[in-house]
């Protein structure tokens, strides 16, 4: 069964901390995505990557960066966490533009 695994289900961090959210997929998918999901706003694309070391900004990249050193791993980095980054973060991967699979999400709280 194909899988997208997010390293943490729940995370609590302090304002100003550097935060790493990790995502690993075992499907050899080229594309990987990071979204945040907030009530009433749906899923908003932060960054996506269509190949190793390649990345593109989504709709809301401010305050975030990403790293894709290996095909199976896509990391989301909050350089200096702020309370408005408290959210549910979802990682996804896809083959071309099909067969998109999501992880279960990481609920991040910044205090």
């Amino acid at each position: 069964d194909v899988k997208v695994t997010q390293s943490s289900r729940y995370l609590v961090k302090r304002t100003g901390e550097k935060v790493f959210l990790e995502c690993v997929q075992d499907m050899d998918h080229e594309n990987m995505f990071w979204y945040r999901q907030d009530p009433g706003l749906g899923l908003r694309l932060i960054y996506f990557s269509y190949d190793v070391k390649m990345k593109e900004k989504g709709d809301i990249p401010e305050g975030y960066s990403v790293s894709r050193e290996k095909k199976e791993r896509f990391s989301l980095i909050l350089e200096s966490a702020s309370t408005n980054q408290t959210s549910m973060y979802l990682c996804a991967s896809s083959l071309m533009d099909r067969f998109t699979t999501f992880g279960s999400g990481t609920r991040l709280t910044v205090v």
Partner: protein
Amino acid sequence: GESVGLHLPTLSVQEGDNSIINCAYSNSASDYFIWYKQESGKGPQFIIDIRSNMDKRQGQRVTVLLNKTVKHLSLQIAATQPGDSAVYFCAEGGKLIFGQGTELSVKP
């Protein structure tokens, strides 16, 4: 910029009735659309997709209709069941731009 939107944030239907969830998109160049179902505490799951060279695609109890003229797509669920209660998202393929979601509630 690109956007994908849904017409209603919530939809309540009686068990056994058909459900219709609507979605509008703005990018006329989009050629691939996907519907997702998200249950509480889980990530979105693929339901059905459609390419722009089609007007209709059917799955098991679900049908997606695409009207490129008015940039609108809909998800129809036949004989809605309590297990269909979830938030439904339409998404535009490629960069996977999502709409805001419609919460479907099924009354027994």
